[in-house]
């Protein structure tokens, strides 16, 4: 009730007054915090280790196909360890959660909220400023990491990257930031909901574990229930596979994994069903130009952004109706 009324009362003045002051302060906090330093070191070491191993692997089979070598730095794995993008799949959520899980509840716990909100700004600016600062921080971190990987590539492979490779890596950078955005929005929502930062962090991690471990299992069972295979006709198999993919794509990690595939393996022509009989058609033939790959990931990117906006809106509504008193 109060919320509806608050939104109906016309407010005067831009909701973004003070936004950049908040962004600057939050970014300075992130960049100087021990927590972020540890995570930055972790991701940097991972990048160097995996890219170095990938470079060695590439050189050992040199002469085969010298195409998109720099992209392989991201994708070639030194079994049994995952490739760099494999690591990114869980390092990015970790960083994103670390950036936001105590964003709002810490203002309550430090008793700074009432004082800050008594300055001439709206709550909108505070919440959105914190979110933007997190996005910018991620952008900064990943940019540095990408440069590190490319630098290592130039040194180890002895050739410069092509424009196409740089373009694809930049798109991957953008997609990675948006993937982080989803998890940041989750953590931000919990930081509004739970007064204890530890609770918010645990809840965020629980959601992430759910989507990365349990959701694939659950979606498999759900697909067999929703589209059971009774006789075994191709139609039935196809229907089940469609369901499975649709369900799996509810997980941000699945969307991100598909984006990675489309961007880093230009020969992939479709992100649809990857059934055995389609796989050949999907992979054979000329590599796609970057613009086509981007078209391929467009729905995925929009999906990630839509999820982010939805979660942020939820956090915003919760925050608007909260009392400033702790």
């Amino acid at each position, binding site marked *: 009730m109060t919320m509806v009324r608050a939104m109906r009362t016309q407010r005067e003045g831009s909701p973004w*007054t003070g936004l950049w002051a908040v962004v600057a302060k939050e970014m300075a906090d992130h960049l100087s915090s021990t927590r972020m330093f540890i995570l930055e070191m972790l991701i940097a070491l991972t990048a160097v280790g995996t890219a170095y191993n990938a470079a060695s692997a590439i050189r050992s089979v040199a002469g085969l196909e010298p195409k998109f070598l720099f992209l392989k730095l991201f994708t070639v794995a030194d079994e049994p360890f995952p490739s760099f993008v494999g690591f990114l799949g869980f390092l990015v959520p970790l960083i994103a959660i670390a950036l936001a899980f105590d964003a709002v509840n810490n203002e309550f716990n430090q008793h700074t909220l009432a004082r800050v909100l008594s300055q*001439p700004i709206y709550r909108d600016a505070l919440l959105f400023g914190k979110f933007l600062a997190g996005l910018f921080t991620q952008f900064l971190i990943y940019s540095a990491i990408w440069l590190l990987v490319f630098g290592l590539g130039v040194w180890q492979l002895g050739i410069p990257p092509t424009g196409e490779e740089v373009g694809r890596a930049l798109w991957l950078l953008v997609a990675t930031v948006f993937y982080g955005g989803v998890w940041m929005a989750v953590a931000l929502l919990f930081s509004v909901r739970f007064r204890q930062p530890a609770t918010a962090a645990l809840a965020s991690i629980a959601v992430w574990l759910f989507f990365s471990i349990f959701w694939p299992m659950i979606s498999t069972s759900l697909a067999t229930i929703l589209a059971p295979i009774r006789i075994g006709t191709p139609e039935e198999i196809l229907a089940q596979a469609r369901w499975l993919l649709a369900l799996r794509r509810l997980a941000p990690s699945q969307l991100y994994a598909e984006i990675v595939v489309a961007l880093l393996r230009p020969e992939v022509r479709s992100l649809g069903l990857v059934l055995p009989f389609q796989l050949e058609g999907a992979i054979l033939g000329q590599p796609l130009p970057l613009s086509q790959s981007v078209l391929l990931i467009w729905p995925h990117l929009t999906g990630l952004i839509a999820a982010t906006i939805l979660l942020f809106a939820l956090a915003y509504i919760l925050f608007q109706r909260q009392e400033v008193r702790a």
Partner: protein
Amino acid sequence: MSPTPVIETRGLTKVYNGLVAVDHLDLTIHEGEVYGLLGPNGSGKTTTILMLLGLTEPTEGEVQVVGWDPRRYPLRVKAQVGYIPDQVGFYGDLTAWENLMYTAKLNGIPRKEAYRRIEEALNRVGLQDVAHRPVRTFSRGMRQRLGVADVLIKNPRVIIMDEPTQGLDPESAREFLDLIRELKGEGRTILLASHLLHQVQAVCDRVGLFRRGKKALEGTVEELALQVLGMSHYVHVEVEKDAPRLAQVVRRVPGVTDVEIHDDCTLWVKSRKDVRPEVAKAVVQAGGRLLRLDVELPSLDDIYAHYFKSEAGETENE
């Protein structure tokens, strides 16, 4: 000079899921006034303050602060009103200076001007030597003073303080009261919620006594004393001898409500105004030899205690 209201509420009401925290409050505070909000715990002082700042949505009623409705124009109100919350908090990892700089930026104050104001504010509250220490190393009193510095950054027309002297040592509290007087001298309007009655009495021009979300009493300390105690002055009379006989005479002085004979040389007189000249005249005319004549105002503590005691009695009778 006709005083203009800086803060005005009409029928201001706040209901928290069925619990009426503030009940049809009409409050008028004039420019340059120091106004004290008093009342037991949970009587709605903090809730009122939050509504004045647009930090809590009123359920009903009208509010105007510095001429604007904080619901529609919160930014204009908050640009001119400084607020020190009851538990004032700062970012512990940032220094005092950095915390104030953040406030300056949120207020859109240009950098050069901000530097000047921060330095001035820190000097004023005596924190210039610890300006570059992280606030987490500050004592409670230091934080409280930083709270004042924080408010001064925006050069506010109105300052609202919620229990600003709690946790201060007597010396700091005294300094704090001096600072409030100084701020009043600069023409700022000050609204002060507190439980420390003698401090309120020392600095406030008017006080409002809150009870269960309503403003039960309002006025200067003298006016409150008249309403609650039926008298406003204690006059202390010392004579050479014959106090009981002189008491008869003093009792007949207009305005005197009660005379208590303390001993043969001392009378305690309660009155509705300052009756010293009349008492002196009466004593001398009756042939008494006056040695000393003092006047004392009843303390806010007495008024408060008396008011809430009699109120409690009334509710029991209901």
